[in-house]
């Protein structure tokens, strides 16, 4: 890294690129001369009902549109002549036809589509910015159409992704409004780098940061994924791995989530009004606190004669007391959700537009947990000339989120209650000797009830702009250029106010204010040129060349002050311990690629591609990396030789793909540096420095190579489709943040290209139209994914010694270790236990290394001497079942059943309550007569030094969603002046089947962390019901 040459500011560099882009925009005159219009209607062949959001596109161009609520479409500015068009919609087979466009006239082309479970001719957007049919690609790409989902059952973008596509794992981290989800596609590639997928909106990379805040509240943190408004999305494509993502370049190794926002449709303005109301409720039964009161051997009172102490003969139990702070002073309330949105779309011959605005607010189950989000979108597409179009996409989001203290935070409502006292220190309490002067805590361990602690006001305000311009220029019928430039600029304001004399913990009574302002910017410029060449009547070649430039800037200024003047909520009111800081980071990428595709008889497709990247984060000793990709697709079922006797097989495609992608190291990872600090020397503060990072000038990207293969099968005239994919993804040169020997005194870690990680598995998706009667339809989608993750090698140091395992997670219960899944639980096992003396208590007395009790029972529990693998925190099996039942095309009932299996979860809530020396307030500890022997063993084993008993099977099946959509007949809708009307009633998180003994197997107190996973005093997911009304005019 160095300062820019000749002092030219970085902005000028960006201008250079924009100038280059400007060269791409030709002068044009008589833009609309010699053009005509194509219009028509697309309907369901069987029901004869109009199809909404059906696509129609002109073959060989980037031109196309979608149908509106009445099933009609209109494409303007088409050069006169004969064109080929294709109509299609998810769930229907495509229908091609030709049309003759006459200058100055409107040509009508209606389509009648038949239901089809296969998606072979569905169009996807490629890395080059062009569209392609799925049959042309050799890899599996999942498509999610939010317009076909019951969005009423979702609250954010993560919910839209969850359980929709095989291989895409979305795990919420709790029931806090505004908390993010951990998103993984085909496992985790890297030991130390982010494993989050790349996020692209309308062709540009945008910030996808997990745990995106600078102020912690103990656990839950927002994710930038959820800045995306699902109502603005037309289509989501998920490119699952390097086999398909090679051309997306560095940062795409974890897969790509590609979002296309809604576009306008030519025709008269169509208004859509969306209104939603709903409620949510915490349905959990929280455990009370217990303590066994008793006497020590000397006769003195003890408030904690737990089963261990009793078994050791140190005390006898007089009584077991219980108290539930949450019942005494319940901070939980019913939440609610409201949403109001309005959009307009339409356009004429020259341009189409989509405008939308939406406001939604959500109140969580704590008073202080709420979010408000306002989003605006303007998408305009203009046909500037016969051969030139441009689309402008502008989105703006403003949000305000308030988060509660919780999880690993003594001030949290659940934390303070579940670790609290087994007696209520109210004025009427019976334990004055224990409560002392405390008459207000009601048993909360923080000493205050939550509603007082919740004076802490932790917020995040976001002002986010995502804008892009995409232009297609087709100077010759066989040549098309696509340019996209855009920016994602996110102004994030993390702030917290602790008012004085309200929260009595540490220095909080004096009050303080934190104000951290960040601007996170991502700039993207893409250029692509594609030439198509019909080499022979059966052979078509397609050649693409292109490049990409991205700049990811992070700028943050932090400020803090203490001793806050009551009544103020600004730094202006602070008077002591002022602290300021800055974070300035910048990672730039420059890439170029080429791609060649061969299409033979529209049945066999071979593609070869290569991309080369440079990146500012690479070490100075590394220049660039090359990512190759190959894929093949053969629609063998359309071959003449394919046996016609297999009448049940209506479609068969074989496909295979191989590709490489990478991940770049983080900013400054290659640099040796020191951090500036203040030091008091002789009574005066002077500038000093301390060790920053040791750097590694040889850093290069981690490299993930993936091979996948599979088939697409259509059965019974495409009423059933099966997609099967097997993949094997191997990451080499993984950037491991190697823990440094502390004796170096040179920082904690250093990135090195060392690791080898393997993810392999299978995915299957079955869609079936089971019943297609005129008035009743029943279809379902079933997805399954089976994922294995393994660290093949953590690598070796310069002298050839293996890099030692890396511990992580609460109580170091997880490990990064050769031949185990990344982040696998790794603890000493409980090898045996039994109630040998039949007293109903598992005792550790007289066990090896444990308390000796002469005359006491023989050892009743043994634990292993060395740690063993105890399971992965990530699901290895994910199955989803989404049935849909439709009556009279007016009533549609859908459900989402979601099973995740094979994962474990560290129930640190129970472990901490039962075994931590400071608490031991769970029933297991207090009363052996009401605790099973295995549960006693888990507790006693924890006291002996292993958490093995609390690493629990966290497999679950959830009834994630149920929704009923009622579509009003047109005459009913018209009574309120609407063209159409629908009402959706939806429920979310309706039931969970699990063996997990905690409250919810789908939580993580460590939010969206790479691997660290535990349930620790975390707010479980909440149940919600929503009603959503859609009206179009």
């Amino acid at each position, binding site marked *: 890294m160095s300062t820019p040459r000749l002092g030219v500011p970085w902005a000028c560099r960006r201008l250079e690129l924009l100038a280059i882009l400007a060269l791409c925009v*030709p002068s044009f005159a008589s833009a609309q001369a010699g053009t005509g219009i194509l219009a028509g209607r697309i309907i369901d062949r069987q029901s004869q009902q109009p199809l909404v959001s059906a696509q129609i596109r002109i073959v060989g161009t980037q031109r196309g549109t979608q149908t509106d609520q009445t099933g009609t479409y209109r494409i303007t500015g088409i050069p006169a002549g004969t064109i080929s068009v294709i109509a299609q919609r998810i769930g229907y087979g495509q229908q091609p036809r030709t049309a003759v466009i006459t200058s100055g006239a409107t040509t009508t082309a209606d389509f009648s589509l038949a239901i089809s479970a296969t998606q072979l001719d569905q169009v996807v957007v490629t890395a080059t910015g062009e569209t392609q049919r799925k049959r042309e690609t050799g890899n599996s790409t999942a498509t999610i159409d939010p317009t076909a989902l019951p969005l009423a059952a979702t609250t954010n973008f993560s919910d839209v992704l969850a359980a929709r596509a095989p291989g895409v794992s979305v795990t919420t981290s709790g029931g806090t409004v505004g908390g993010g989800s951990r998103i993984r596609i085909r496992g985790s590639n890297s030991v130390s780098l982010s494993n989050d997928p790349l996020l692209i909106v309308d062709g540009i990379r945008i910030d996808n940061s997990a745990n995106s805040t600078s102020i912690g509240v103990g656990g839950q943190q927002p994710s930038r994924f959820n800045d995306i408004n699902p109502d603005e999305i037309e289509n989501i494509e998920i490119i699952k791995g390097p086999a398909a993502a090679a051309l997306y370049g560095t940062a795409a190794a974890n897969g790509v989530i590609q979002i296309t926002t809604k576009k306008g449709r030519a025709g008269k303005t169509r208004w859509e009004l969306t209104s939603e109301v709903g409620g949510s409720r915490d349905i959990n039964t929280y455990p009370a606190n217990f303590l066994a009161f008793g006497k020590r051997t000397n006769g003195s009172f003890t408030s904690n004669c737990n089963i261990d102490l009793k078994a050791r003969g140190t005390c006898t139990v007089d009584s077991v007391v219980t108290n539930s702070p949450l019942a005494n002073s319940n901070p939980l309330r019913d939440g609610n959700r409201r949403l109001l949105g309005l959009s307009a779309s339409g356009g004429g011959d020259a341009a189409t537009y989509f405008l939308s605005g939406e406001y939604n607010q959500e109140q969580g189950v704590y008073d202080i947990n709420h979010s408000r989000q306002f989003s605006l979108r303007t998408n305009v597409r203009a046909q500037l000339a016969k051969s030139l179009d441009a689309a402008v996409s502008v989105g703006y989001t403003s949000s305000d989120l308030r988060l509660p203290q919780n999880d690993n935070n003594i001030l949290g409502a659940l934390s303070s209650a579940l670790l609290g006292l087994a007696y209520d220190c109210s004025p009427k309490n019976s334990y004055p000797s224990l409560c002392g002067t405390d008459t207000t805590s009601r048993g909360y361990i923080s000493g205050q009830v939550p509603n007082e602690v919740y004076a802490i006001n932790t917020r995040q305000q976001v002002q986010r702009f995502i804008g892009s311009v995409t232009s297609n220029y087709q100077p010759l019928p066989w040549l098309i250029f696509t340019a996209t430039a855009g920016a994602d600029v996110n102004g994030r304001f993390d702030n917290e106010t602790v008012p004085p004399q309200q929260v009595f913990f540490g220095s909080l009574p004096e009050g303080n204010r934190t104000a951290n302002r960040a601007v996170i910017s991502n700039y993207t410029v893409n250029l692509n040129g594609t030439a198509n060449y019909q080499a022979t009547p059966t052979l078509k070649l397609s050649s693409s060349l292109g490049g990409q430039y991205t700049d990811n800037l992070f700028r943050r200024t932090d400020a803090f002050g203490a001793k806050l003047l009551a009544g103020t909520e600004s730094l202006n009111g602070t008077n002591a311990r002022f602290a300021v800081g800055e974070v300035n980071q910048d990672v730039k990428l420059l890439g170029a690629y080429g791609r060649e595709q061969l299409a033979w008889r529209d049945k066999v497709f071979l593609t070869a591609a290569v991309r080369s990247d440079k990146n500012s984060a690479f070490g100075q000793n590394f220049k660039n990396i090359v990512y190759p990709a190959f894929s093949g697709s053969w629609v063998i079922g359309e071959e003449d030789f394919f046996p016609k006797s297999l009448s049940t097989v209506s479609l068969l495609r074989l496909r295979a793909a191989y590709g490489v992608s990478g991940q770049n190291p983080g900013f400054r990872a290659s640099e040796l540096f020191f951090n500036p600090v203040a030091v008091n020397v002789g009574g005066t503060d002077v500038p*000093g420095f*301390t060790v920053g990072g040791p750097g590694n000038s040889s850093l290069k990207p981690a490299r993930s190579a993936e091979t996948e293969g599979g088939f697409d099968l259509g059965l019974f005239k495409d009423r059933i489709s099966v997609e099967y994919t097997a993949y094997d993804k191997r990451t080499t040169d993984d950037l491991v943040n190697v823990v440094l020997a502390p004796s170096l005194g040179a920082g904690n870690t250093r990135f090195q290209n060392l690791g080898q990680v393997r993810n392999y598995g299978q995915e299957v998706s079955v869609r079936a139209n089971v019943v297609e009667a005129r008035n009743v339809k029943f279809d379902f989608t079933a997805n399954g994914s089976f994922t294995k993750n393994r660290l093949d090698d953590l690598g070796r140091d310069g002298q050839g010694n293996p890099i*030692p395992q890396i511990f992580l997670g609460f109580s170091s219960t997880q490990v990064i270790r050769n031949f185990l899944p990344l982040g696998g639980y790794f603890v000493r096992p409980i090898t045996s236990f039994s109630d040998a003396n039949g007293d109903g208590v598992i005792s550790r007395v007289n066990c090896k290394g444990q308390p000796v009790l002469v005359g006491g029972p023989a050892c009743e529990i043994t634990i292993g001497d060395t740690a063993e693998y105890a399971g992965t925190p990530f699901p290895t099996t994910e199955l989803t079942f989404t049935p849909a039942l439709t009556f009279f095309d007016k009533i549609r009932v859908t459900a989402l059943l979601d099973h995740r299996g094979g994962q474990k979860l560290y129930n640190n809530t129970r472990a901490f309550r039962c075994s*931590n020396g400071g608490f031991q307030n769970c029933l297991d500890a207090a009363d052996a007569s009401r605790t099973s022997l295995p549960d006693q063993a888990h507790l006693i084993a924890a006291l002996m030094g292993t958490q093995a008993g609390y690493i629990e099977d966290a497999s679950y099946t959830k009834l994630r969603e149920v929704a009923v959509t009622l579509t009003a007949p047109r005459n009913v809708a018209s009574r309120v002046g609407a063209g159409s009307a629908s009402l959706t009633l939806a429920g979310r998180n309706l039931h969970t089947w699990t063996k997990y003994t905690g409250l919810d197997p789908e939580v993580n107190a460590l939010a969206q962390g790479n691997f660290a996973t535990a349930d620790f005093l975390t707010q479980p997911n909440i149940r919600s019901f929503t009603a959503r009304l859609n009206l179009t005019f």
Partner: protein
Amino acid sequence: MNHHSQNGRAHSRGKSLRRVLIGAGAFALAACSTDLLTVSDVDIVKPAALSGKSSLPSVLAASIGDFGVAYGGANNSEGQNEMSGLLADEFINSESFPTRIEVDQRNTNEINATTLGIFRAIETARATTDAGEISFATLDPTNASRAEVIALNAFTYVLLAENYCSGVPASTINADGSFTYGSPMTTAQLLTVAVAKFDSAITIATSTGAGTALNLSRIGKGRALVDQKNYAAAATAVAAVPSSFRYVINHDENSARQNNGVFSFAQNSRRFSIPDREGINGLPFRSVGLTDGRLAVRRNSSSGGNGFDNFTPLFVSAKFQNRSAPTPLAEGSEARLIEAEAALAANDDATFLAMLNAARAASPTYALAPALAPTGPAPIVAVPATTAAKVDLLFQERAINLFLTSHRLGDLRRLIRQYGRDAESVFPTGAYFKGGVYGPDVNFPIPFEEKNNPNFKGCLDRKA
């Protein structure tokens, strides 16, 4: 006309195409350039900026700063001072974190994250002061601050020897970014290195007229020699140190990193409480401190007077009453105590008593209650009759005078190593007040992460 128009469009189209191709070419050329990838990094300091003589004040500050964090702790990281006191009998745990409970319980696991943090910090201080000494020697060998940096460097070896198991490595990051891994040093070797460094600091301080560094080094050398059981030489080393001498690590409210660690963790975060006779053998710090101004112990007034766990009574010392309270590193009173120990070894009761009382007189005292003036202890009138009682008296005086200055753990180990006592008669033992029993630790293990050093396989021994 039509023909002409078509030609015109074709011409226009060709022109546009050329522009596109030029654009694509320009982009390709740009891709070959590295200018577009140039980034600046303004938040940090690179080694080149610290290579001149003008950087030496910052080098001194870096040395003091890193040593201060490692020794006295900070707002967000414990130091040797707090954690060695927790392992010994100066503190008991009054919170819920398992990593610190197991230290208090003398049963520290080598993957304990808290002890990893304090080991990193002391090794960082060692490395920073090592590098600081090289900077001074290279850029300005006669600089008066050079001896101070060397003395602080030597103190890191003393702390590593007193608080850790035998077998501590000292590794180095080289100028080119490569690593030179150190081999494990025994406790005796660490002390030998420390004495040599103190000698070097004394020589340089004498020649440069750095009086403060000179006395700092003398006390440090005396402390290391006592650790080596060389009492007479230790007394000689500290003889010239005035009783009024005081070298402290200054803390400050200015930044969290500069806050006093004992205040931050004991009083503010309520993690550690001053006990009375922890685990049978502990000294009655709480009781003595209620009347002795050297300790000035009182029940914390906030949060019901309990620790973070809401049940352990929280007692704090006025010695560390706010974020800016300094942490003493070397004081004249310690010099007198070293002389007293030498007198004890020489059976010189008169000098023994005189030095103990000189130490009492020299020790700073603090107010027993906010409204009261600091109260010092009365002089000791008579020396106990038995040697064992004299040893007890000496170590109690050391414990009180040097309270929470990372001496106590080393002293308990010396009682075992040099005075023949059993570990279970000097360290807290028996039933642990939060459940379970005390473990066998008499020092900190070297963290598991040190196994990233190919020369390190584990502690050479865990003996006192």
